[in-house]
């Protein structure tokens, strides 16, 4: 089943401090992370996240390992993150929380463009073009299918 969302375009090397600042970490209330997502990067982004696909530049999620960055996006209703390269901890965090990730370069995508993907396939579509993403490992696919690591371990153990 295909899923579509509107693009929210961000630049390269957007670190996890930019996704959720350190001053909002000491809580387990996910709503706080949603409210302040991208606050130090572009304060207009938070309100556009529901139903979006984030189209990032290189090295998205670099820096701190804080899972709150991926959790903020998931909780805000982001459908997937697309980037030519991911910082690896952020990548794993997204998969572990059931947030779809596509490692591919969508050039020329603008804010608001419709981006479509099939959760079982490794490509995304936008502007009438198909962009092949790097294939995930079988285990990562299984974790995503289970909605995240909690669901995956629940099935296995």
């Amino acid at each position, binding site marked *: 089943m295909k899923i579509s969302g509107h693009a929210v375009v961000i630049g390269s090397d957007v670190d996890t401090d930019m996704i959720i*600042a350190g*001053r909002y970490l*000491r809580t387990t209330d996910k709503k706080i992370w949603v409210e302040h997502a991208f606050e130090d990067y572009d304060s207009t982004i938070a309100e556009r996240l529901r139903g979006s696909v984030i189209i990032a530049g290189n090295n998205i999620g670099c820096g701190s*390992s804080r899972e*709150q960055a991926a959790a903020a996006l998931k909780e805000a209703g982001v459908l997937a993150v697309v980037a030519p390269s991911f910082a*690896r901890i952020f990548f794993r965090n997204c998969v572990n929380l059931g947030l779809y990730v596509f490692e591919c370069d969508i050039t020329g995508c603008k804010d608001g463009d419709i981006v479509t993907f099939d959760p079982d396939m490794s490509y995304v579509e936008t502007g009438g073009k198909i962009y092949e993403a790097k294939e995930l490992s079988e285990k990562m696919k299984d974790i995503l299918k289970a909605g995240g690591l909690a669901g995956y371990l629940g099935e296995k153990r």
Partner: protein
Amino acid sequence: METLSERILEGPAGSYVDRAVDRAFAHDGTGIQALVALRGFKKQNLAAPEKVSIIYDHIAPANNTTTANLQHDLRDFSISKGFSFHDVGCGICHQIMSEGECLPGEIVVGADSHSCTMGALGAFATGVGATDMAGIWATGETWFRVPETINVHLSGDFSGFAEPKDAALMYIKKLGMDGGTYMALEFTGEGAEAMPVSGRLTLSNMAVETGAKAGLFYSDKKTAEYLAEYGKKADIQTPSDCSYERTVNIDLSNLEPLLAVPNRVDNAVPVTDYSGTKLDQVFLGTCTNGRYDDLLRFSAIVKGKKVKVRTVVVPASRSVLSKALKNGILSDIIEAGCTVCPPGCGPCLGAHMGVLGEGEVGLSTANRNFKNRMGVGAEYYLCSPQTAAASAVTGEITSPEELL
């Protein structure tokens, strides 16, 4: 032949492997998130609690009721389950782990991006997020993609006031903030062999600033001597011919004191390019540069002088603090007018004990100069302990070579 990562993970670069984790650790910030994640699992039994360490360092001691309550919850859980628990005042998680809690050849996973620090001891050490950590607590294992390796070849010997931090800023400049993504770094060459373990820890610590998964040195006589101080016996690792993705050469003898200019860690320039920039705070500490040798180099410059700017010094661990106290360098630092805080890492991430105000300019021995990280609206530069000391004494950015 294999790279050190391939040897430890027992698989060829590019393959995916499931491996038991020899030592897992988290701190007060990520540990509580891992506990919340664990509570969301269907089964919450723990595979090997004796292999888990919890270290309180990020906001230590707690700064308010919310933090105190989260720490209370994780503390009770950790002690009741038999985790190796290190409460406030013990030090920074990576420093504690490097003080005899992990060994060459082990697979070490920490819920913190700078967990790659322990690569300095010849361990395969890497960072993960909270849910991965909870998964390791529950199953004792995790998956890895065996990384390709970039060789950082260090030749020559440091001259003047250049030191390991300057070498770290230089390799990051050469690789860029994503030049090591998904890969491991291996530090080799006569410069790596001659470097004391304290300096190796600085270089490995910053591997993640290139996007790398790990940053390894081969365990040698120096590693064995270092671990023997903590009562541990270490295996020596012999390098074999192996294929690297690429090699970056750094001649240590050509290095000068460097500064990473806001807001990118790979934006390193000679300190002298910014000489005279007025400072509001100097900070010596963190998992990058809060070790005894760092305090020693810093104190040698500030001794007998007075700092002209507020200067915060945070030893990386209780044993660093004790040694600095015993050897008299702590009094030199205090008498120079510095503020000494308890072991931890609060200021680095703008959490606690040394946050900068809007419009302020800071100089720090930490590893990240990201926008707003150390204080909203502040900017700060990264440097070595000796550059921090020279700048503290003048109140403005100063190369130690200019001071003397």
